[in-house]
């Protein structure tokens, strides 16, 4: 009897699964594009001090509204600040919003959905009616209301977006849970004496995880747009923070003569949200449990 079964043998399996998924994503041009843009975004945010050519907050009133080129790659804004550098630092804000929202929304949606789906009965009714109430409002309007109540700031914008984007995740997790709550492996776990909490955490959530990750990735585009929208309305990041939506909002006044004030952050928002959509689509193909056997 060979004794190859020890804990270090498990990590490569996990790693190779990740490699498989990456290889799968890179095979299709659209998801490869999405992955590349997001990689660039992350690198830009991480290396912002080295990539940025100017201080994003340094004003130079002798040099306002300069067109692209001439020492400023994307030109300067109405206070003479370098737009390229502001975009680079803005990547940090965008990533922070996406990361914090996903970290809050994913677990909440998973727990609420899995509990409602597995326990059923009155628990399901209560949790799903709460979810319905949140779903009944347009998400931007609800975030607006939250931010208005909490006071405009980046942190509150993140809280507001998180509060409005968990219900679809909970719905999804509940629907997934319903498909296998009667499965034999759940029955087997019950026969082993596992508590409902243990079954939800160990048996149900791993099954819901792929679709929730896909949904979260697709959600990120919406989160970016909502954050930019809140920034545009002056309810998100406050000046002088180089948030892309806020940049568009201030640039709007000079749009006719100085298009680059609006176009550059606009294209950045477009690219990043498109990239997350494409990546989410690719992930759906890569992680779909119904296609697992093909690989």
């Amino acid at each position, binding site marked *: *009897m*060979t*004794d*190859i*079964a020890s804990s270090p*043998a*498990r990590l490569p*399996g996990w790693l190779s699964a990740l490699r498989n998924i990456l290889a799968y994503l890179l095979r299709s041009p659209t998801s490869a594009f999405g992955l590349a843009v997001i990689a660039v975004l992350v690198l830009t945010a991480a290396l912002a001090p080295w990539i940025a050519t100017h201080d994003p907050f340094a004003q130079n009133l002798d040099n306002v509204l300069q067109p692209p080129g001439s020492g400023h790659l994307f030109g300067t804004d109405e206070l003479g600040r370098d737009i390229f550098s502001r975009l680079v630092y803005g990547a940090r804000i965008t990533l922070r919003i996406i990361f914090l929202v996903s970290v809050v929304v994913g677990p909440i949606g998973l727990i609420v959905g899995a509990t409602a789906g597995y326990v059923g009965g009155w628990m399901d009714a209560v949790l799903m009616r709460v979810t319905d109430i949140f779903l009944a409002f347009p998400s931007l309007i609800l975030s607006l209301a939250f931010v208005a109540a909490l006071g405009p700031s980046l942190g509150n914008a993140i809280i507001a977006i998180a509060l409005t984007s968990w219900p679809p995740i909970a719905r999804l997790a509940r629907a997934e849970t319903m498909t296998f709550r009667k*499965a*034999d*492996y759940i*029955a*087997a*776990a*019950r*026969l*082993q*004496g*596992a508590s409902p909490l*243990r079954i939800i955490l*160990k*048996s149900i959530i*791993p*099954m819901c995880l792929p679709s929730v990750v896909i949904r979260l990735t697709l959600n990120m585009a919406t989160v970016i747009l909502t954050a930019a929208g809140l920034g545009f309305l002056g309810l998100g990041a406050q000046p002088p923070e180089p948030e892309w939506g806020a940049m568009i909002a201030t640039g709007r006044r000079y749009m006719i003569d100085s298009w680059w004030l609006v176009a550059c952050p606009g294209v950045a928002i477009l690219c990043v949200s498109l990239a997350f959509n494409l990546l989410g689509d690719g992930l759906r193909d890569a992680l779909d*449990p119904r296609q*697992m*056997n093909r690989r």
Partner: protein
Amino acid sequence: MTASLEIRDLSITFGEGPDAVKVLPSVSFSVAPGECFGLVGESGSGKSTVLRCVSLLTTIWSGEVKIDGRDLRELPLKQRCRLIQMVFQDPYGSLHPRQSVRTTLAEPLRIHGLDDHEGRMKRAMIEVGLPVGFLDRFPHQLSGGQRQRVAIARALILEPALLLLDEPTSALDVSVQAEILNLLARLREERGLTYVMVTHDLAVVDHMCDRFAVMLRGEITEILPREAIPGNQATHPYARELIGASLDYEGRA
């Protein structure tokens, strides 16, 4: 370790009064320690339902189920789990698709706070005839027979006294069926386990069981010893018909 099982007036009823629907009118039988008891009957006759009641996966029944003379419903959960385990029909649905064999086997050990996980898991794998290296495999890397062996290992790792077998071989190839049945027979001999086995294959009953009950529409028509099969000594007409059909089929095959 071994245990007796006594079922008296097990029934499931929906509704009350004259409109009440009796899904399982009344089932009573008893199984001696170390015995293998078969439940046969056509589809929908309530065989699997009896197992789900005994394992308390279904709780809406009335009647009395006693294990070693103790009322099933009064047993604490953890104690019950260490007395009764179940092997399901479909090995493709009874193992968690995202858990390795190691996780599947370690979960019950963790829940019950048992020691020596590694040793217990290895012994369980060896007992069901799988290489210890398979511990790090996932269900989709195993064949149907291997999966069913893992399911048996999972059921046995808590060292139960009573094993409920819900058509443990019907989802498997014929050649693999025999292997699994022999494995189950050997385990019973070694551990003195008590089996309650649902099947609709009388050949399996003939091979495995000491006695068996023929069920029809949620009722036991007749309880027969294994020796009654070859000569078709059943007295109830339905049981006679069932055994006769099976003998006919095997005669022709």
